């Protein structure tokens, strides 16, 4: 028996990671996993890993793993076709792929429609990057790659929050300032199941401290279970509930007493005067927005010396409005109102009684929650953080998936942020915070991205909509730069655009649009869109039409069933990578440290798999882009630039480098950068110690210091800039003859108006020729702590422990509803929508609305070993891919109207 060792690695299976762990190894066999307690003092979750990490040992030794590269022998592709995978050598496999890739380079990187011939999809909310080694360098070296094929994003993410959150307060993901917050209104955010170790850790502390959370959602989730109150709201009506909260504060309470008026005046666009056409009224010369100084009764530019900016009233003012496409509307004496007055008028109709009819929450409850929110807001109080006095506003409003995407997502997101703004609780201790940035730059510093932009707001790079700069010919198939100005143009933007459109357009070519070609080569890595997409069965049909698929394969699955080449990569415990940890990151990782952590081979390989870095290097070499690939690594494509202030660990671009050599250079650059050259460590040091940290200021959790220092304002509540882009986009599309995006264009409003969002899904049945009355129930999904993002459905350990939590074996139905349908616990039932039918066992619970059924996680596997025998239903079979269910940011919502019957 050999010596037992504990090898430090990280777990980044879910978006709420990374967390650090150790793998106990004997004779090269990984035996057990445990938390890396060495970091318990610095890691904001006590150094622990969650249940998913414990699945990794089984993942490593799964007998169904792909044991060597394979090639397809059956040229026919289809769900019913046996791919006939035959084993081949790595050399042959890589040569087959490289030959295809060289062919592309010879013929041109873009096809006749202008779309990249190479496409790559990775899943898991960006987590695959933490496993794919230097593959990003390969993509960077390649040139144009279509990364816009979605694997479920748009419905599986917090889409509105990603986009609007990042615009408004650098909040790709929003979190309460949990260590300080005392009152949280939580519309469906399931943080106790999806917030990872740190989320669970911090929320538990807050709860025991006495913080109160009100959970507003159609079913009693894990998070609802842990909340002080459950408000069972009708699906997709959260915006009505939130609008009514705003109404309560502004129209029923004395807002001058309960709101943070100085914050509204100085940190928001509330006092900006709005002209008759809805645009800000501006100084004719400087084009700066004007506000009304009540102190001396005159309009002044927002950044002038203003005694007392007016928030209400109507003023006669001379100025100009800037419309779309450079239109200038001049006024000698316009009737202008502050944006805040517009807000007051806008929310006046949204009384609690109105909301009760929409969302099924009693008006008295809405009033009470709004009042409790105000009572906890501590307006006027301050707190000292690291020697600096900051406002203290311990209230937050959180939104969950499905609340936060698709139609109504913008409205909910806007109302949530307005609620924070009204009491000055945005980006201050205790309040609503952003966690990370993915669309603005610099990516590594949220507070550093808080830079001055136009009109006193933060800078934000919209995709251009002007006549000159609009991208009339989409550069990738989801056309995010063409259709969604707000999604910007960062490396993350392709995945955050309308990532389902390629699948949709492949089925039905839209008018006035380049021919929707399929990519000549498609790489898929750590993703299974044939299961995880909305309307997954339809996506599987599209995949069958792809001419050449290269799948980095763990086991056979529903997506690589259509692949031409399977490349078994070294998995979590078998491969090497160094990643950034610490600072602030979703969902609740707020550290007082930052640094780097390693994942290293803990288990000896038991089959013929290869590290992704080695695969990438070899592909680059065989494709003739080695020089560019190495230069991309030198620039930072492996996570850290190898040249920096005072250091140069750059690789020789001319030759291929071994795995350890590459990561050794990254380790040295990273440690040099982190310690200002005081402690430079190679990869061997990281292998022994696991991680390296340096302090990170808590003050950087909040944008407030950066905003006040630069005298910037949050772009709330009035949405002038977005509307200008929307109007320009409408012009551009109509000039091109495109009318199929018209519904989406209507979403661009200065202040969002409520519409009956549930009706969009109810009436969708008519669009496909069915009667909405056939589908009387809502079907929803919820994340599972044991499964979410883990790609671990094939692991029996996870299945076993998940079964302790209700719903993992079937569909959750309200007990009374089930009784009325003659359905008993454990009965086999079918759940049917216009898109499809899924089957499973009935799980009867009281904690769900009678009009709603719930399917946890994502299942309905038909190929993945073990998972295919679980027979658990999946919402992904029931959701529809449709333009009419797509909002202006390109997201849909994870819900469907269904009928339910016993089989």
């Amino acid at each position, binding site marked *: 028996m050999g010596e037992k060792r504990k090898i430090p690695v990280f777990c980044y299976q879910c978006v709420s990671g990374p967390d650090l762990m150790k793998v106990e190894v004997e004779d090269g*066999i990984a035996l057990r996993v445990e938390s890396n307690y060495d970091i318990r003092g610095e890691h904001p979750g006590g150094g622990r890993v969650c*249940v998913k990490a414990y699945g990794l040992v089984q993942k490593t030794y799964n007998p169904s793993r792909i044991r060597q590269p394979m090639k397809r022998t059956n040229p026919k592709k289809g769900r019913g076709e046996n791919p006939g995978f035959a084993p081949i050598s790595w050399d042959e496999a890589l040569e087959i792929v490289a030959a295809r890739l060289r062919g592309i380079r010879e013929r041109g990187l873009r096809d006749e429609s202008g779309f990249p011939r190479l496409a790559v999809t990775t899943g898991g909310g960006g987590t695959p990057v933490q496993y794919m080694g230097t593959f990003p360098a390969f993509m960077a070296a390649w040139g144009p790659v279509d990364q816009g094929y979605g694997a479920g994003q748009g419905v599986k993410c917090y889409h509105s929050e990603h986009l609007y959150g990042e615009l408004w307060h650098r909040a790709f993901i929003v979190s309460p300032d949990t260590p300080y917050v005392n009152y949280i209104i939580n519309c469906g955010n399931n943080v106790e199941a999806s917030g990872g170790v740190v989320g*669970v850790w911090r929320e538990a502390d807050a709860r025991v401290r006495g913080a109160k959370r009100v959970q507003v959602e159609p079913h009693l989730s894990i998070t609802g279970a*842990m909340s002080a109150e459950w408000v069972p709201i009708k699906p997709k009506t959260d915006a009505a509930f939130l609008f009514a909260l705003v109404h309560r504060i502004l129209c029923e309470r004395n807002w001058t007493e309960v709101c943070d008026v100085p914050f509204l005046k100085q940190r928001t666009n509330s006092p900006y005067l709005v002209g008759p056409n809805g645009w800000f009224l501006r100084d004719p010369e400087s084009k700066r927005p004007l506000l009304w100084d009540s102190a001396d009764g005159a309009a002044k530019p927002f950044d002038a010396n203003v005694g007392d900016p007016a928030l209400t009233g109507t003023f006669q003012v001379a100025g100009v409005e800037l419309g779309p496409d450079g239109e200038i509307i001049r006024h000698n004496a316009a009737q202008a109102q502050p944006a805040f007055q517009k807000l007051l008028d806008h929310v006046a109709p949204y009384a609690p009684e109105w909301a009760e009819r929409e969302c099924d929450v009693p008006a008295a409850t809405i009033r009470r929650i709004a009042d409790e929110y105000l009572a*906890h807001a501590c307006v006027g109080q301050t707190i000292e953080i690291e020697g600096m006095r900051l406002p203290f506003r311990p209230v937050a409003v959180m939104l969950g998936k499905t609340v936060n995407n698709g139609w109504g997502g913008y409205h909910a997101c806007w109302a949530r942020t307005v609620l924070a703004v009204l009491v000055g609780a945005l980006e201050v201790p205790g309040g609503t915070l952003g966690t990370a940035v993915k669309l603005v730059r610099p990516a590594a510093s949220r507070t550093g991205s808080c830079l001055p932009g136009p009109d006193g707001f933060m800078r934000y790079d919209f995709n251009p909509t002007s006549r000159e700069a609009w991208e009339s010919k989409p550069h990738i198939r989801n056309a995010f730069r063409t259709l969604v100005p707000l999604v910007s143009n960062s490396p993350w933007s392709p995945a955050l655009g309308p990532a389902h459109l390629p699948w949709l357009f492949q089925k039905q070519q839209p008018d006035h649009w380049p021919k929707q070609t399929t990519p000549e080569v498609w790489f898929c890595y750590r993703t299974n869109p044939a299961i995880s997409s909305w309307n997954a069965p339809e996506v599987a049909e599209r995949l069958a039409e792809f001419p050449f698929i290269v799948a980095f394969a763990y086991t056979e699955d529903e997506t690589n069933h259509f692949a031409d080449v399977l490349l078994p990569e070294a998995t979590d415990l078998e491969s090497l990578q160094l990643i950034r940890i610490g600072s602030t990151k979703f969902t609740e990782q707020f550290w007082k440290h930052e640094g780097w952590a390693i994942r290293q081979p803990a288990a000896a390989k038991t089959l013929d798999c290869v590290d992704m870095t080695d695969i990438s290097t070899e592909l680059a070499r065989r494709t003739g882009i080695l020089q560019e690939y190495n230069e991309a690594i030198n620039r930072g494509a492996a996570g850290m630039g190898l040249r920096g202030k005072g250091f140069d660990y750059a690789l020789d671009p001319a030759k291929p480098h071994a795995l350890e050599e590459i990561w050794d250079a990254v380790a040295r650059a990273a440690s040099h950068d982190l310690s200002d050259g005081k402690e430079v460590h190679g990869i061997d040091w990281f292998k022994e110690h696991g991680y390296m940290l340096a302090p990170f200021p808590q003050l950087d959790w909040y944008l407030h210091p950066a905003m006040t220092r630069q005298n910037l304002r949050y772009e709330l509540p009035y949405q002038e800039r977005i509307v200008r882009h929307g109007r320009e986009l409408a012009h551009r599309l109509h000039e091109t003859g495109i009318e199929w995006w018209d519904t989406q264009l209507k979403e661009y409003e200065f202040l969002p108006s409520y519409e009956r969002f549930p009706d969009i899904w109810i009436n969708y049945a008519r669009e496909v020729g069915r009667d909405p009355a056939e589908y009387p129930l809502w079907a929803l999904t919820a994340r599972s*702590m044991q499964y979410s993002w883990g790609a671990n459905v094939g692991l029996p350990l996870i299945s076993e422990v998940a079964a302790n939590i209700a719903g993992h074996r079937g569909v959750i139905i309200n007990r009374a509803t089930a009784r009325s349908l003659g359905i008993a616990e454990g009965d086999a039932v079918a759940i049917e929508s216009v898109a499809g039918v899924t089957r499973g066992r009935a799980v009867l619970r*009281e*904690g769900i609305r009678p009009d709603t059924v719930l399917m946890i996680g994502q299942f309905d596997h038909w190929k993945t070993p073990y998972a295919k025998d679980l027979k658990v239903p999946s919402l992904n079979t029931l959701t529809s891919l449709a333009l009419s269910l797509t909002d202006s940011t390109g997201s849909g919502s994870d819900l469907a109207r269904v009928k339910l019957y016993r089989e």
Partner: protein
Amino acid sequence: MVVDLNRCVGCQTCTAACKHANDTPPGVQWRRVLDVESGTYPDVQRLFLVTGCQHCAEPPCVPVCPTGATRQRADGLVTMDYDVCIGCAYCAVSCPYQARTIVHDERWYYGKETVQERKVAHEERLGVAQKCTFCVDRVDEGKAAGLTPGVDPQATPACSASCIAQAIHFGDFADPASNVSKLAAGNPSFQMHAELGTDPQIKYLYTTPAVPGRDKEPEDEERLADPSNPLVGALQTFWDWRAAMNWCFGGASSGFAVVAVLGAAAGMVNPARLRVLLAAAAVLMAIGLFCVFLEIGRKLRFWRALTRLQSSWMSRELYAVLVFYPAVLAGLLGAGPVALALAGIAALTFLICQAMILYKARGIPAWRAPLVPWMIFASGLLEGFGLLAIAGWLWPGLAAYAGSRLQLAGITLVIANAALWYAYRSSARSRGIGPLARRVIDRVTMPLHFVGHAIPALLLLSGDPALFALAGIAAVAGGAYWKFSVVARAGYQQGFALPKLPQRGSGRFAAPARLEHR
């Protein structure tokens, strides 16, 4: 251990960490966390309940163990010695916390073993009882290394060390300065099934600093009858038909021996035939014992069950056997009345042991009801009487019937048995027997009263040997029927109950003045 219900989110990390730390096979969870729902829509509460061995201060599993494999250490930990345990499962049915498991065959997660599973397999645990040990090795090794359990993760049980919500706290209640002592002293807590007197050493916290928690309404019958409700105990499978057969054959045979010896002593039974009757009883008893032998997990170690005479009724039963058989043999070989009397006393002891074994199985409400030992005892005598009646018909001249004291004794036994069953059934609910078990008891009642009580009583009135024998058959059948049903069908485990529910959050930071407005 202190478990904070306000913290646990049911993530299953502790369960998985425990499985890693203790290498438990598929389906075995020493640390299980239940998803509990109560109330009716829309007033619903949901919480997550950490369960497992409670390391009771008065562990019901320890005294019943016939081998001493389960012990309580000086520091209170309840331990398992896999090399001593015979896998009789008595501890498992005695545990009101469903903490124990027996795995008889190797199981692998993927159907076939992996190299890792081979490496961490524990063959010594096959066929024996296993349960949470509070990671005793970790605790001991940690302490030896100068670490403090409950503070240093390496010296703390894996569930507690891994918990991502800090819901599970481990420490020494005997030390008032320990983390758990402070938590328990500073917060109200409850113990699971405190009324059973086990003094379990997991204390559940249910309050926040400002909110006292609240009483839980009693579960409604429908919920308690729902097998999918995690609070409802499952049907125990440790003791199946094989164990039940020991009560059927053992009860009837020992009762037979007792009745025969008493009958002979009282002059109702021909004393010359007593040794043959005892030999017949011995054969029947052997069948029962063979059945239960088939049940145990480690058959070659069965002799170890003799080692806990001082506390285990199972050991005592075996000693009764060890006296009974030589006495019967001696009788057959011509020994005098002393040997036969000794056989009678041993049989009586055996019957009492059988009665007490079931009664001491504290984990099964239908078994631990106070009437159960009386029922087994009385039923054993009635079945013995029945066997005597059958023997009398087969072997004329064995005994006198009509108008005899035998007739009176038989009718008295029938009435006593009927009364006991009636009382058992009527008091079942108040004794904490759940609806699922009560359904079994209800189903048994009419057939039992008819076959096991009414028919024998009526036939016994006749005085005819053949009818007497028929009465005997009915009485034996009735006894076997209810015992088999209660052991193998009504043996639902205790399940779990929450006397208090946490009240989540408090809102105590609200500024009340700001809540009031015009």
